[in-house]
């Protein structure tokens, strides 16, 4: 039983991904939840690096951390006073018992289906997996997945205009 250095780093990255989820789920202060989400996103980017998905990891860091998380922090800071931020993220006891039961049922069902079906996944990576993913992703985006690419660009344009319209109407 010998553990390589790569696997130790993988374990640390996985723990860095999972552990802040406790803070996201149970913290009373919503700023702490948002900053814990930063570590989760960073750990997910590290897991993408372990999957040899270099472009995806960089996209994760740029869009999730640089875009989504900053937007959420702006939302927190724009909608709440700083003084009462310690009590802004209250859990409801009834809902948390219900959510715990639902989560346990779902994890039990998934584990039961996983054990009882005996799925055989290939544990090793494919030998013909491309080493640099950016060129292959660009080829796929501009040939086979050109229509979803254009649809997503139209969606982004609609989001840009729509968010401006909604936020502007509220200010007026």
């Amino acid at each position, binding site marked *: 039983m010998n553990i*390589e250095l*790569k*696997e130790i780093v*993988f*374990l640390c990255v*996985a723990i860095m*991904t*999972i552990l802040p*989820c*406790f803070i*996201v*789920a149970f913290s009373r202060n*919503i700023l702490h*939840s948002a900053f814990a*989400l930063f570590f*989760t996103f960073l750990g997910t980017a590290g*897991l*993408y690096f*372990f*999957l040899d998905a270099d472009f*995806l990891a960089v*996209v*994760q860091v740029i*869009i*999730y951390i640089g875009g*989504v998380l900053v*937007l*959420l922090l702006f*939302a927190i800071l*724009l*909608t*709440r006073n700083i003084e009462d931020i310690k009590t802004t*993220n*209250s*859990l*409801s006891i009834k809902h*948390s018992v219900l959510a715990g039961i*639902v*989560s346990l049922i*779902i*994890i039990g069902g998934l584990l039961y289906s*996983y054990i009882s079906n005996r799925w055989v*996944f290939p*544990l*090793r*990576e494919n030998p013909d997996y*491309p080493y640099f*993913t950016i060129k292959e992703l660009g080829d796929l*985006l501009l040939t086979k997945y050109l229509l979803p690419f254009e649809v*997503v660009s139209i*969606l982004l344009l609609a*989001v*840009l205009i729509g*968010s*401006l319209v*909604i*936020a502007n*109407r*509220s*200010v007026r």
Partner: protein
Amino acid sequence: MDIININSYMIISLMLFLFGLFTTITRRNIIGIILGIELILNSAALNFAAFSKFSASNLEGQLFSIFIIVIAAAEAAIALALMLSIFMRHGDINADKLDRLRG
């Protein structure tokens, strides 16, 4: 030991999904609910990328992950605009108090 396999990725993604579901159900603040939804989308993208690496022969799973990330960013932008609008109108973003449509 060979722990970097698809089972580890599925366990990590399952944990992320369950914490996201718990956060989405239990929070009263709308921003907390959005945080839970981001966790769920993140776990889905991670699962797509893991299956693309371990049991497919091409990169289409990573492409789906990129689409998921783009849609999550769009959702966060719209959510920020909606939350600002709700806060300007009601002065509160507690999800339990937004019951004007209740009959």
